[in-house]
């Protein structure tokens, strides 16, 4: 079947047609009914070629210290109760924990802090009668260390989120002490991207205070409670309402212990998307315990201080599975699952700058580069015709097919084009030229041996094919490995090169050979212009 001229010609034209269909949106702005028949995707250009969304985020280090002190506060309190240290006063201030104890228990208290909270330092001490007032905080070095760790953790988390969101070739770097620069190419929905990146995603489970439920929204907050807003969406009208709700301050379980979060649809949730959670073994144990202890009560599922739902615990839940509902759209549920999987940011981030930025290579360089590439391409076309005469035209047609297929495949696969990708294309074109040169030189060798045109063309192609195959496969192996292990620019290079090599092999078999076969069958020439 491969020998049939008609079959090969049809195959070439079908692929050409498909490529052109994919390329049309790049060339013209489609309107109305046409939109239905053509794919909507254009070639995605990377930050270096097109620019994109430029976000400067600043990690709220005050909140970070607050959170860290919060944890220490609870540890200290538990420790003092356990060790029998009486506290006259215990309070958390903005930058310190202030504790008032009896002076005679000083020794015991210092031991506790030294043993269990070694990163806390006494920064102030005051004696009034037999009361001793102590201010505890982190040492300056420790503060720097904590901030640094937090920024790194935030970078890693944001990188995970962006990866899972499916944006390729982003830039995510630390800037200054506590800022993070995020640049994303080709974002269609910047608000959604911002929401995804900037969400703290602190997931907490807390008990709803049922006894004082009536006090919610009155401004009176009972001891040990906090007031949060609960979001609920009316399924029919899609109107979101928020109502105040009182919950116990104590956190029962956090999102740190999640192993997975996935979007699910349906079941008891009226065919709405919801996020199914899975806890690790420790999380499962805790969840098992808290549901067992609180049957009949409501547990609030809180994300970044907003209550998403507060279901009644009907029975003890073992197996470490839970779900978050809240009338999500499917995009919202998908993004929520991503941020929960990627983990919480160590502290909230503030958006300092949100602008659209031009290409890193500079518009001027790109214009020059495009001009140079066009000129280079023309030189190759002219050279091939000069050197191989009429056969050079055949080679040029094959190269042209190569390029159209490559760009079509690029659009169809939604790959992101960057300068390294273009380097891959240059290499592919180089290999494409080489393919033709190899074949033509072989045909010439056969002709020199005195073979007929028909025999020389067939012999030339079949002998050159072995070489072409080995050379391409060797390079293809490296691109696969570069693709799997490479990141950023290396991956972009590998993708284009891999697509290019496969297409090259296709046109090497079907492209120019089909044209030659057609000419030979139709005109039966005695000599070949090569």
């Amino acid at each position, binding site marked *: 079947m491969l020998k049939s001229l008609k079959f090969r010609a049809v195959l070439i034209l079908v692929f050409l047609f498909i490529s052109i269909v994919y390329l049309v949106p790049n060339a013209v702005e489609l309107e109305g009914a046409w939109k239905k028949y053509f794919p909507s995707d254009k070639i995605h250009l990377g930050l270096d070629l097109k*620019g994109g969304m430029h976000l400067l985020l600043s990690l709220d280090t005050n909140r970070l210290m607050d959170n860290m002190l919060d944890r220490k506060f609870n540890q200290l309190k538990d420790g003092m109760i356990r060790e029998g240290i009486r506290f006259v006063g215990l309070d958390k201030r903005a930058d310190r924990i202030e504790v008032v104890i009896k002076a005679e228990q000083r020794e015991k208290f210092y031991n506790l802090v030294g043993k269990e909270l070694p990163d806390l330092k006494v920064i102030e001490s005051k004696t009034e009668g037999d009361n001793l007032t102590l201010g505890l905080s982190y040492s300056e070095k420790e503060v720097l260390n904590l901030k640094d760790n937090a920024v790194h953790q935030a970078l890693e988390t944001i990188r995970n989120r962006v990866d899972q969101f499916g944006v390729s070739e982003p830039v995510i770097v630390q800037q200054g002490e506590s800022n993070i620069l995020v640049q994303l190419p080709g974002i269609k929905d910047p608000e959604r991207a911002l929401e995804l990146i900037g969400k703290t995603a602190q997931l907490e489970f807390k008990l709803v205070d049922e006894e004082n439920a009536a006090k919610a929204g009155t401004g009176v907050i009972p001891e040990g409670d906090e007031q949060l807003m609960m979001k609920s969406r009316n399924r029919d009208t899609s109107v979101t309402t928020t109502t105040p709700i009182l919950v116990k301050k104590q956190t029962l379980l956090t999102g740190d212990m999640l192993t997975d979060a996935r979007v699910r649809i349906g079941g008891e949730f009226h065919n709405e998307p919801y996020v199914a959670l899975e806890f690790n073994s420790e999380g499962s144990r805790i969840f098992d315990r808290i549901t067992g202890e609180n049957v009949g009560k409501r547990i609030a599922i809180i994300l970044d201080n907003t209550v998403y739902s507060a279901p009644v615990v009907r029975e003890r839940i073992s197996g470490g599975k839970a779900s978050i509902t809240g009338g999500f759209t499917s995009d919202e549920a998908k993004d929520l699952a991503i941020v929960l999987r990627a983990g919480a940011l160590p502290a909230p981030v503030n958006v300092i700058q949100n602008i659209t930025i031009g290409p890193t290579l500079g518009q001027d360089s790109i214009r020059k580069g495009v001009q140079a590439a066009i000129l280079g391409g023309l030189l190759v076309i002219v050279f091939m015709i000069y050197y191989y005469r009429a056969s050079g035209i055949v080679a040029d047609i094959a190269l042209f097919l190569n390029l159209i297929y490559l760009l079509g495949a690029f659009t169809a696969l939604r790959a992101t084009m960057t300068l390294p990708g273009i380097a891959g294309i240059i290499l592919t074109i180089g290999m494409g030229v080489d393919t033709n*040169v190899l074949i033509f030189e072989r045909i010439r060798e056969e002709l020199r041996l005195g073979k007929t045109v028909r025999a020389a063309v067939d012999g030339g192609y079949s002998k050159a094919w072995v070489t072409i195959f080995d050379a391409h496969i060797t390079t293809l192996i490296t691109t696969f490995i570069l693709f799997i292990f490479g990141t950023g620019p290396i991956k972009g290079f590998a993708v284009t090169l891999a697509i290019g090599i496969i297409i090259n092999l296709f046109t090497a078999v079907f492209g120019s050979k089909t044209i030659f076969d057609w000419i030979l069958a139709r005109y039966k020439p005695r000599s070949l212009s090569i």
Partner: protein
Amino acid sequence: MKFREITKKTNIDFIGMRNKMFILSAVLVLTGLFGFVMVALGKANLSVDFTGGTELQLRFDQPTSIGALRSALTSGGIEDVQIQEVAGKNDFFLKTKLMNTGTEKEKVQDKISAIISRAMPGKGFQVLGSNMVGSSVGKTLKQHAIIAIALSLLGIIIYIAWRFNFVFGVAATIATFHDVLALLGIFFVLHREMNILFITALLTIAGYSLTDTVVVFDRIRENMAKMKSKTDFGKVINGSINEVLSRTLITSLTVLLVIAALLVLGGHVLLDFSFALFIGVMVGTYSSIFVASPLIYLWRTRS
């Protein structure tokens, strides 16, 4: 039939020249290794992608082109600078390797301001912000790149060992390594800036060199099948290289033609990139003939 030919039928003794060429190759490789060590020590001319530096945001009162800004900075001695424009405003982000150090009295911001006001008089501008930026090439990227390269080499050896034989695989790998190191060495000696694009150029050249080597090897394999005794192995290699010489030259020339266009017209940013490709294609072509082929000759005739 008459053909247009770049070379008539040649009969050059490539294998006979091997010792002289090995000296050249050794010099290239050693320079490359030295360059590699310097890169690892952070003493080479690495770009802001690797080193981090300072980012400034500038706002001009009137529309200004990137080109004008770039030449203004170049005239003030700041060559390696990334310029990005902000859509819809006369704002620019500049990224340079310069950093505010404790000892330097002049801050980067002041230095750049001074250069721009000198080179573009009458254009009002202000510096909106100045920030330290970290390296955009993370540690993981470096580690992954090394794993990827090691595995690729292994993959090549295995494939070529299967299709040809083990010796060919090792020789092709050594030739590829030779080219990458040579390019690194040349860039280091010429003190050209090594940026992400340079890494891409290295990969491109590795791919080109490999293809070129396989083409030569393929002809050697074909002629070896016709070979009668082991003694004329050198002749077989010479003959094979001579037979594919016109193809080697035509392919290299065509590719160089494209790169030359990029080199001449591509502008400042692409200059180093196209320069690396230009040198690399030449080295890649050289190594198939003068590194890979003599290596299999030596291995074969020794054992």
